[in-house]
Structures are given as structure tokens and as C-alpha cells.
């Protein structure tokens, strides 16, 4: 087990280098000069631009720039400076916890509601409840998130006045409930589908028949025997959702004014703020890798037939 984890961590290094380099290349091949862009419609001061480019190392060959960038992260935990002179790390320290909170709310919602709906429709396959869940999940999947977000924001916060319509920099848990609900809606729909499929498949398994023949109450057959065996696809999905929900909440964060990762990343891309974009994406890549490792380790916990050596 320990060796497996060590091997997986080592394997992460090339993956990490590969993805970050790719992003580095992509960001630096964006058209236009980021320093000139700061001038907007005004003519840029050539001398200033040149000195600034030199200061930021933008004239070095790409590979050298990338190498220096990595070196600074590894040696000094320095993600470089944004164009406004602030360390990128400071910005990240501010936005990641906010997004983590938002993603936590969304995932909590995803798990509770998604599993409940999935189990319900799996057990009632072909019946009324199953159809209803199908319709609900299809609706959620087909309604664009900005429509869903706006509608819920208007209804819950403005019409019913149950919560604040926007969140702001403080990001209190209570204020994050509604945005988390909206952010998690899509994940709920997918998790419900995956759970249903898994439940239906395992419901036919021989060991479920055995559990029934043992005289176990139906409740126990479902919770102890059926659910536990149906969890691997569910855990896989939830595990990949954490990264997605943290980095991909651009629309939700926009609607509810949550100053999180997605929103900041979006702004940074618009302004061609290379260091910020690369820093954020780098951390997101790390989060994805960590989640996938945790999911793989969970497989072994969930299914003793899977052994890591």
C-alpha cells in the first residue's frame, strides 16, 4: 500500500510537468502583448513595455521561462507576480478557500440528493418514481446553468427573501448555500443517473438474493449489501467532481458574485495575466491528481478484491 502510494506520487511528476508546460505554452501563445494590453486603447510606451518585458523575463526562450517558473515554485513556493505587482500566491490564498467552501456545499448537496434520487429510481425501476427522477435529471441537464442560476437567485433571494442574492468577499457558509445548490445541480443529475445504473445492475446480483434468503430485512439488504457494492462508480464520479466544481464554477461564481477560482481565472485569461492563469491552473491540476489518487485508494477500501502492491 505504502509503495503503491509512493509510486503513484512519482507518476504524478511527469503528468504534472506535462500539463503545466502545456498550459504555459498555451498562455504564452495567446495573441497580443500583455503589457501593451494594459494600455487599453491608448498607444503603448515602447520603452516602458520593453523594460517591463525584460523585468518579467518575457523575452527569454519559452523553455527557459518555464524552467525558471518551476524553479521558483519548487524552491521558494513563488508563483510569480501578477502584472499589478502582487504575488500570485496571495491571490490564490484568497480565492481557493472560497471555492473550496462553495465546492464543499455543492458536493454535499450532490451526494445527499444524487444518491437518494439514484437509489430511489433504481429500486423503483420502471415505476412512477423512476420516471419522475428521469424527468427531473433531464431537465437539470438540459437547462443552461445561467438560466437555472438566475431563476433560483430571483425566486429564492429576491421573491422569497430567504437569503442574500450575492455572496461577496466574506463568503459565509450561509450565503454559499444557494450558489452551492445551483453549482451542484448538474452533478446531482449525473450522480443520480450513475447511482441508478449501478443499483439496477447490482440488484440482480446473486449475493442480493442470498442476503434476502438469509432473512435480512429489506432495509439492511439495500443499505448494507446493495449500496456498498454500488459505490465504486459513484465514488469515481464524486472524486472527479471536486476539481471540476472548484475550477469550473465560472458562471455560478459570476451570477452570485463569489470571488472564487473560476471567476478569477476567467478574468485573468481575459487580461492575459499569464502568471495568475498558470498558477491557478497548476494548483487545480494538483487537486485533480490528488483526488484521483484518493479515489483509487478508496477502491481498495470499497472492494477487497482490489489490492495495491
Amino acid at each position, binding site marked *: 500500500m505504502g509503495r503503491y502510494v509512493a509510486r503513484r506520487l512519482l507518476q504524478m511528476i511527469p503528468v504534472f510537468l506535462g500539463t503545466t508546460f502545456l498550459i504555459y505554452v498555451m498562455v504564452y501563445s495567446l495573441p497580443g502583448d500583455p503589457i501593451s494590453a494594459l494600455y487599453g486603447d491608448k498607444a503603448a510606451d515602447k520603452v516602458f513595455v520593453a523594460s517591463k518585458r525584460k523585468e518579467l523575463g518575457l523575452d527569454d526562450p519559452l523553455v527557459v521561462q518555464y524552467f525558471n517558473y518551476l524553479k521558483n515554485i519548487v524552491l521558494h513556493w513563488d508563483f510569480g507576480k501578477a502584472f499589478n505587482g502582487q504575488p500570485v500566491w496571495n491571490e490564490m490564498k484568497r480565492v481557493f478557500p472560497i471555492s473550496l467552501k462553495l465546492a464543499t456545499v455543492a458536493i454535499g448537496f450532490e451526494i445527499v440528493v444524487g444518491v437518494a434520487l439514484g437509489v430511489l429510481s433504481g429500486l423503483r425501476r420502471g415505476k412512477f418514481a423512476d420516471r419522475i427522477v428521469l424527468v427531473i435529471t433531464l431537465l437539470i441537464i438540459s437547462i443552461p446553468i445561467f438560466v437555472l442560476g438566475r431563476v433560483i437567485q430571483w425566486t429564492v433571494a429576491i421573491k422569497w427573501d430567504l437569503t442574500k442574492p450575492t455572496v461577496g468577499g466574506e463568503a459565509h457558509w450561509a450565503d454559499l448555500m444557494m450558489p452551492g445548490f445551483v453549482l451542484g445541480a448538474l452533478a446531482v443529475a449525473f450522480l443520480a443517473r450513475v447511482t441508478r445504473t449501478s443499483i439496477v445492475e447490482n440488484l440482480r446480483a446473486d449475493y442480493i438474493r442470498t442476503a434476502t434468503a438469509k432473512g435480512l430485512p429489506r432495509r439492511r439488504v439495500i443499505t448494507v449489501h446493495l449500496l456498498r*457494492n454500488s459505490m465504486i462508480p459513484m465514488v469515481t464520479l464524486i472524486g472527479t467532481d471536486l476539481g471540476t466544481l472548484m475550477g469550473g464554477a465560472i458562471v455560478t461564481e459570476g451570477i452570485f458574485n463569489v470571488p472564487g477560482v473560476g471567476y478569477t481565472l476567467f478574468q485573468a485569461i481575459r487580461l492575459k495575466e499569464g502568471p495568475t492563469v498558470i498558477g491557478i491552473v497548476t494548483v487545480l491540476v494538483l487537486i485533480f491528481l490528488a483526488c484521483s489518487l484518493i479515489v483509487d485508494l478508496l477502491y481498495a477500501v470499497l472492494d477487497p478484491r482490489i489490492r495495491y502492491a
Partner: protein
Amino acid sequence: MTIETSDPVLVQPGVPLLEVEDLHVEFHTRDGVAKAVNGVSYKVHPGETLAVLGESGSGKSVTAQAVMGILDMPPARIPRGAIKFQGRDLLKMSNEERRKLRGQRMAMIFQDSLSALNPVYSVGFQLGEMFRVHRGMSRKDAKAKAVELMDLVKIPAARTRVNDYPHQFSGGMRQRIMIAMALALEPDLIIADEPTTALDVTVQAQVMGLLAELQREFHMGLILITHDLGVVADVADNIVVMYAGRIVERAPVHAIYRQPGHPYTKGLLASIPRLDLKGQDLYAIKGLPPNLMRIPSGCAFNPRCPYARDVCTTELPAAVPLGTGRESACHFAQAVLEGEVAADVH
């Protein structure tokens, strides 16, 4: 001519442990209604081993599952019949009453122990579950009981292996665990659905021997489902032979080997490999079992029967008594028994 049988089990007084009476089970599927069981009746007394024989699809397992109450309804439906267990009709009980009988008073052993045991729980957990759920024992006491059970079914090093998972055991050991699980609460009736089919021949004999031994020790009724007539001879008291959801012949076990009373049984017996006939082609009953959505009129076996006459295609044969405890549902039962009818060789 009558066969002299005085099977002690057959003349046993008192209420039988299990009485299946005119049981019908059908499956409602998209393609139509499959009549899997069409009027099965049998009795099992305490301490008796009843073997249920028949080809694949003849309704052996479905009958057993109806007794256990583990059929999925729907698609299954039981339009007719009674299943009396210790005198009470199971089909009239509430689900909760039946659940409490399962595991405690009746238990089932399945064919494929690898898929029948839950892969994600240790065998100790799965054995102990019986005591925790039905007896309200603590986890620790239940684990101790699990070890006892594993000792009972002769699993070496039970104390350490109790924490192992099903896939870590050999097929034979796993089937012993299934047996232990069925025996856990000392039920009165055990249904073993092809308990040795998935095992190696040598292991088969050991497992079957163990099951028979424990059955005697606990004086349980045992329904042994199999399509292997060879397995049956040593352990069973009585046999019922099923075809297309009906019992075509019932008899004490030794009588049937000497003199089958139904053409189908005759065919089954002829298809057992025998050492003294080594080298000869194995006999096989020609044709295939009927489609349960379109069971042939008359005797369901008639399209495959070498003795079939016109009457067989039109009239459902009634059970003909053939001496002590014997019956055959064949229009020519007596003649078949005495070897007096000639087979039409097609």
C-alpha cells in the same frame, strides 16, 4: 410385480415439514407469460432428503425460490397453490412473517458460492450477520459464532480465516461457508440448489458428504436440487423428477434406479456416464426442453418421447400410482416400468 419399498420416511406420521401443493408460478415478461411451474406438489418430512431432478429450465429453482419466498414478484406470479411449512401456508403470511422464517427456520444454499457471497464483506461478517440480525448478538459474539460455524464445516484455521474475503477461499471452502451460513440458526429445512455443480469432482463428493452428515446430525429436511442423478443415489431418500414445471415421476431413490417409471426418467438414467459402458456413445434425450410460453398440449414430454402415442399429444397424463410411494405421470406408466412398451426408434 410391485416394487418392495418400505422407506421409513414415507410412512412417517404427523405433519410433514413442508408440503407444496399444486404450486403454479408464472413469469410475466415482455414476450409473454412463461409458465415455469405448473402444479407441483411434494412433501418433505423432518430428516428426509428429497432430491429434485430435471433438465435445465424444468422449474426446480423457481419452485425452491417460491418456497423460500425470494422470487421477484413481479415478474413472478403465483396464481395457484399452497406452500405449507409446519402446517401453515406461507403464501398467506405477511412479508415480515416470512422474512423471519428465512434463515431461522428455512435456509438456502446456492450453486455458485463466489457470486452468492457478497464480495466486499469478510466471511466472518456474512456468517455473523445471521446472529446479529436474527439473534441481536453483538459484533464480537457474532464473530465468535462465525468461527464456531467454520469449525463445524471443517474449514482449517477458522480463527484466522474468519476475516478473509470470499475470493480468498477455494471453491470447495467457499461452498462450506455457504453451508455454514445456511446451518447457522439450525433451521428445520435446507434447500440446496445444485450445491456442488460448480465444484471439482473430488471436492463435490466431500462437500456433498459434509452436507449429508450435517443434515443427519441436525435432523433437518433437505431439498437437494440437481440434474446429476449420480450425486443423488447416496444421499437422497426420495426423488421427484420435474419436466416443464411438472413432476413427472416420484419415487424412493433406489426404486427409481432399478426401474424408472417414466420415459423421461429412463432417458435421464440412460444419459449418466457409466464405467461398465465405457467407450460407448453416451445416450442423450433427443430434442430440447419446451418453450415455457408454448408448452405442448397433452404430455409436455411427448415431442421427445420415444414411446409417444396419439393420446400423448392430446391428453395430460394423470399421476399413476406404481406401488409404495411411487407415481408416474405417463399414460403408459405401468408398461414403461415393466419395460413392456417398445420405443419407436425414429
